[in-house]
């Protein structure tokens, strides 16, 4: 997957975790938590969904990389670059 495809995967996961949020004007450089209501249970689900879908293990010390869309995509790209896009 390239970076844009990873971004779409993250949007799909966010949509699943927070089905009522409007994600169309998400600012990729700002923390998710400032733009939508995500508690720690929801946050764990982002990590768990990635594990379920792509078998990527994200250690707890790396969670700070998942604060914004930009940082998440940057962090995941090396891990997912050889994975085929679902789309």
């Amino acid at each position, binding site marked *: 997957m390239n970076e844009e495809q990873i971004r779409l995967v993250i949007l799909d996961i966010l949509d*699943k975790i927070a*089905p009522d949020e409007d994600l169309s004007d998400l600012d990729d450089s700002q923390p998710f938590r400032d733009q939508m*209501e995500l*508690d720690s*249970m929801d946050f764990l*689900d982002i990590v*768990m969904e990635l594990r*379920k879908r792509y078998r990527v293990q994200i250690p707890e010390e790396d969670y700070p990389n998942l604060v914004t869309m930009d940082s998440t995509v940057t962090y995941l790209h090396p891990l997912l670059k050889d994975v085929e896009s679902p789309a």
Partner: protein
Amino acid sequence: MQYDTIIIGAGLSGLAAGIRLAYYDQKVCLLERHTTIGGLNSFYRLRHRDYDVGLHAVTNYAEKGDRSKPLNKLLRQLRLSWDDFALCPQIESSVVFPDCTLRMTNDFELLRSQVADHFPAQADGFNRLVQSIDEFDPFAETGGYQSAREHVRKYLSDPLLENMLFCPILFYSSATPNDLDLRQFVIIFRSILQEGFSRPYEGIRRILRVLVKKFRGEGGELKLRSGVKQILHKNGTAYGVELDSGEILEGQRILSSAGLVETQRLCDQTFVDETESTGDISFVESISSLDCSPADLGHHGTVVFFSNQTDFRYERPPTPVDLRSGIICSPNNYQFDEPLAENKINITALADHGYWLNLDDEDAYRAAKQESCRAIIENAVKIVPDFRDHIVDQDVFTPRTIKKFTGHLNGAVYGSPTKQLAGTTPLDQLYLCGTDQGFLGIIGAMLSGISMANAHCLS
């Protein structure tokens, strides 16, 4: 057979935990001793009528889309939609004490104005109490027990109002007599007074059916008639269970909803003192089927909490049933589009578990059930219209019934007075969920299963 997680008890907490784990591809086995699921909140059919046990009302009502509310968080975690539970809000409930009645609906402002009308001198204190509750984070507090009574007395000076607020909160949640931990008080204040009551048209069956379908759909395995004889452990680490049948199941970890003392007995260990940690609060409930709706008799209340004396006592009573107080609940009195097929009124009263569990003569037990049923109904019809001429069938449950179907020692509905909020035990890989972890009620139980699965089984 090697499982990732073995869950003991297919009640609401075990089912919710099971869904989380199965969704994330764990190999999960959910074990239930009885022939059906539900635990404390179950159902049965008797003489061609459907009965619910446990469910008076689902607390924590929230409208669809109100994301911050516990109900909606729970649905998201279980990947269910709001419509799955088909919750329908209550009509109106009340707290009835001598010379004073407080009405409440799912609009908290009604209760606020009721307090201002009946207790004008307390109105300001009540508003400050509510503010303190709004600002309190019960999940961030890590200290020990704090008395809720002491907290409330910082704001309210009228013991009648204090007791009228504690009455529904204690009745619907407390494993401890007359007072409870402040964290739990805050959670229950929000869930029943601020958020309010609802019920699916089909009662608890609807919720259980949705949960078990989801669990199986995600690949979870449910074994009914599979009681656990013992939890197997070696060198301080749990690794499996032995069933009553002698079959051995192995698992990476065990999540037990059996209760704290009940679980330690399964391990043949002493984590806590049995006497101190076994609950004392139990109930007798009569369920009457009527030949007309409660509304036809002029009764529109969803849940009526009452006390015949200003000094409300919530404790193990000195008599088989406590005739000083009770709960009157009608499953018909919700805002359903169509009336329910059956008409029912439930009367619940505190009971002395010692009396009920020591009746070994079956005839004496039956006679005691009948007499208590008569007495608690006679007590209740001082508060609500007399429905006794309309009773067409009746069933009664007692602490003995609760013990038989839930395994809770003493028939203690709300379990142990000491809760294990972290869900850990002295054994590695053995965790608790459900009543004795500390979140109560139908929504609380599911949240307990979810949070313990998240904390101990998914990382």
